[in-house]
């Protein structure tokens, strides 16, 4: 059975997760997809082919950089996060934390504390 993705709710999530994972080590596309599944317990599932469009878009924004590397006889494109990527991750994480807090407040029924 093909894994279902949730594109509407996923806006911004692939970037966030990819930037987080690439802070730990450089990875290639297939490894990134596997790592996302493993780290999120299959809750977040990025489309197998779609991951490259996200990676390329991040690279165009200079949030990632890539290099071709041969490991165990296979030549692949590895991605690493840049300083701008770290900043982008920080912004995205902040937005998602705020959003998750707001949703949690709605779900728990407690009124939002005034700033």
């Amino acid at each position, binding site marked *: 059975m093909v894994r279902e993705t949730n594109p509407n709710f996923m806006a911004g999530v692939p970037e966030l997760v990819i930037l987080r994972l690439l802070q730990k080590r450089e990875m290639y596309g297939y490894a990134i997809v596997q790592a996302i599944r493993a780290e999120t317990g299959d809750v977040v599932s990025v489309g197998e082919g779609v991951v490259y*469009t996200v990676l390329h878009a991040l690279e165009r924004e200079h949030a990632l950089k890539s290099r071709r590397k041969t490991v165990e006889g296979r030549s692949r494109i590895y991605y690493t996060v840049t300083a701008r990527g770290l900043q982008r991750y920080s912004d995205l994480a902040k937005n998602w934390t705020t959003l998750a807090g707001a949703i949690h407040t709605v779900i728990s029924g407690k009124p939002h504390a005034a700033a």
Partner: protein
Amino acid sequence: MLPLENVHERLLRAGIKPRHARRYVTELREHLFDLVTQERASGLDARQADERARLLLGSDAQLTAAMLHRGAPRTLAARAPWAVFGIAPLVTLIIAMVLLGKWSMAYFYPYRALSASDIPQTVRAIGIALTFLGSYVIGPALAATCVVTAWRQRLASSWIWAGLALLALASGALGLRVEFLQPQSGAPGGIRGSVIQSTLLVMSIRALRCLRCRFWRCECSDDAWPAKSPDQRRQPRRNHGAAGGLGSAI
């Protein structure tokens, strides 16, 4: 046919830069290979593993749409074919001719007073090479560049044909020509250079200059159609400057 070749073709036809389309498809192929290996390891036979991997990766339409949706960079030729195929080759041709003409004037200037037989062989060879380059190489090279660009990007714009037609006309009208003149009927030899080869174009430029003079009441130094005596018509036009003749119109 290689796997995912359809995705590559669709992206090129959508105007995505060939480099980006190629890289995307290369990475997808590598990913597909990894998926097949993974499925084989889980116990599926080769055919089942291929089908399952292809299903996981996504259909050609999905993979193409994902790339287009993300705003992958499009080529300038896809965004503005009128500029790439209509204007750029013409401008390049004119600039190339002007630069070659200027360089020729500077190079041949020291030999301006010599007759053809006194000009060193190397200089004559350079003159012939420049004539060949200016008349037969630059125009066709620009046309070939346009065709290769259009083919690489799978473009089907009518601007390609319009641009090639314009380029053909311009190449016919412009072309560097260096001639070494032998002394004749008392006239000394020399070097004659021209950039504009079309009589129609020369006459048009002269007519425009005269029109400008009529409207702005300036001094017209050049008659549009100067009357020539039969003797003048018979005699080749001589210009003892390094590059002059019809080239002076530019």
